């Protein structure tokens, strides 16, 4: 590690205002759109194109978009279905990807390069090219197009799990690589076997990265309209994203309704994310030492 011989200790605080300014500017671009969508969801559709950037006060204010949205569909059951699918996807992905990444990082074996190649290439398959064969396969197993709710939800979750595994393995591998091997060696000296090392050493250390990956998998599954439209056929099976799509027609787009649907879709997930954020930070207590 290279060090300099500059003696005067410069305080970091000199640059702080500028740093805050930069960070706040970017934060503005990420917060405003959400505020904008929420505000527009309280406007009558006629005013959205003309006054999309004003506050919904007075004549413009209306709750009709929400009334319409709630009247049209069973929102609660849609939330429930979304939650079931996306949680299944997130949990399965981190367990399977965690197991695989650990071995791919720590072991040297003949097929390692090939397997890693498979993972990377798998990330590039556009979903539009694989969906029809997957659909046929699942149909032959008898889990698609039935009126059994949980089978249908499963049929939708399976391809999503596969689609998120590659990404999860890549991210987790990058993280596990940077963990110092000394801890594992110490555990080995104490007589732990590989499984114990994985669950007692690797998993606790990799927690923040697990949290990140699970949130992403959850989100992608939640927002993945394409797969959901293909596998969830009946109203009882719909997720909240399907519902958003159903609520917005293609002809004469009703922007107000759209904004309210978007709001209904993103608010729960934002709350969930902010809630989980605590756990990520918790998992981020000073990590390993490397140097």
């Amino acid at each position, binding site marked *: 590690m290279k060090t300099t011989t500059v003696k005067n200790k410069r305080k970091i605080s000199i640059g702080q205002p500028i740093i805050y300014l930069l960070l706040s500017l970017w934060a503005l671009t990420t917060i405003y759109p959400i505020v904008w969508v929420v505000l527009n969801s309280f406007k009558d*559709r*006629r005013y959205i*194109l*003309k006054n999309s950037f004003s506050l919904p006060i007075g004549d413009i204010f209306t709750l009709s978009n929400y009334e*319409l949205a709630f009247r*049209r569909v069973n929102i609660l059951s849609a939330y429930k279905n979304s939650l079931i699918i996306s949680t299944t996807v997130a949990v399965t992905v981190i367990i399977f990807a965690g197991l695989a990444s650990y071995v791919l990082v720590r072991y040297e074996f003949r097929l390692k390069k090939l397997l890693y190649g498979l993972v990377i290439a798998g990330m590039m398959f556009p979903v539009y090219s694989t969906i*029809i064969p997957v*659909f*046929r396969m699942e*149909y032959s197993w008898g889990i*698609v*197009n039935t*009126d059994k709710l949980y089978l249908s939800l499963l049929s939708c979750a399976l391809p999503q799990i596969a689609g998120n595994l590659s990404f999860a393995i890549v991210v987790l591998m990058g993280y596990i690589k940077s963990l110092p091997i000394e801890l594992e060696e110490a555990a080995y000296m104490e007589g732990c076997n590989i499984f114990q090392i994985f669950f007692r050493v690797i998993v606790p250390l990799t927690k923040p990265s697990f949290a990140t990956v699970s949130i992403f998998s959850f989100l992608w599954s939640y927002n993945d309209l*394409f797969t959901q*439209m*293909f596998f969830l*056929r*009946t*109203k009882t099976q719909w997720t909240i994203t399907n519902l958003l*799509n*159903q*609520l*917005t*027609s*293609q*002809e*004469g*787009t*009703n922007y107000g*309704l759209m904004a309210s649907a978007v709001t209904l879709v993103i608010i729960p997930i934002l709350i969930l994310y902010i809630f989980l954020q605590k756990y990520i930070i918790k998992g981020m207590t000073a990590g390993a030492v490397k140097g």
Partner: protein
Amino acid sequence: MKKLLALLLTLTMVVSMAACTKKEDPATNTPGSSTDSPKATATTAPTAAPKKVTLNVTTTYAGNDGNAQNYQDAVANWEKSTGNKVNDSSSTSDETFKARVLADFETGSEPDVLFFFNGVDSNAFVQAGKVVSIDEIRQSYPDYASNMKDGMLGASPVDGKNYSVPVNGYWEGMFVNKEVCKAAGVQIPDANTTWDQFLETCQKIKDAGFAPIAVSLATVPHYWFEFSIYNFLSPSTHNVLPKNTTDTQGQAWVNGINDIKMLYEKGYFPENTLTGTDDETVQLFIDNKAAFLIDGSWKVGGIEGLTTDIDNFTVTYVPGKGDRKTTDIIGGLSSGYFISKKAWEDPDKRAAAVDFITSMTSDELVSKFAQVSATALKNGPTVDESKLSSLAKDGLKYVKGATGMASAVEDQVPRECRVPVFDGMPNLVTGKNDIAEAIQSVLDLTAAQ
């Protein structure tokens, strides 16, 4: 056959403000839900199977379709009165929906009853023999669809046989913003306006600082395509596909698109016609910035939802030239209820499927769905005019005054084959691509099907 259809339709057509599932999702008028139960028309069917069944049904009555609620009520009523269950997988009509339906037929997981396009979109499963023809159904149920005119059921392009029972139809016409016409000091075009007079009108409107015609060539060129080529044909010849670019129809297509190019060059379209969406250009029309808009009957409800001053809008004939009279319009019935072979061969489901469609296409329900649009009903729909807006009444007059009708020729071309002309329209009007070549590619693609 087509001629007959056109004539029959002309006699019975009325305005539609209800949604119709033609190419886009229909408008957004939400009729209040009503609870009076439709009486299923009695069929002389052998007694319905005693076993209660669950029918798998797929339709396009979902999402923002104006009839989504009507459909749900009707299904609930049918379930109540028969004791059968409906497993409904209706979805907004779009590309994914179509792909899904076709994939279902392909994998053998098709629904028992399907409400779907009866044009070329249905060719794949009609050819594969996966749906039952009306004739075959009538051998066991002589009264099936007996309240409909057979000539208007919407015969399959594959073999000219009827496979589906339609509900309501569509027409296409020219909506007018009266305010803009007044400000520009021009007459609102009527049944006697010629194409040349129309061009003069457009020039005056442009000089007054408005956009004469609201259209997004980028996303919805098809209405203009339809009427521009209609101008070089007539109701009886409009529905014939060209064999090449030099026969009568082929020439009409080339000339028609050249007319669109001419309108573009004269600057009669909005400045962002090549990049704006349909919603943007419609908004121009609503905001008193554009005078004319060609669109379908479903737009009546769309405009009602967008404006606070419905009396400022009317609908009129698209000015014509040549053999096409100004009062010759475009319209038809483009979707209907199919019964799949699978359900037909299932002794438990057969009777239920027939009964379901019979009740969904009863005079009473068709009237409710169609409001004032086209139907194939022998007795015509029954409508309460006092509930209509001024624009809807204008639409009623529009259809009554029609002297001829052809259905949209684009429906004869599979959607994926329309690509060179429809998606390529911006490149055609700017001269980047050759018009005749693009039409030739459309014909080649269609022939390859």
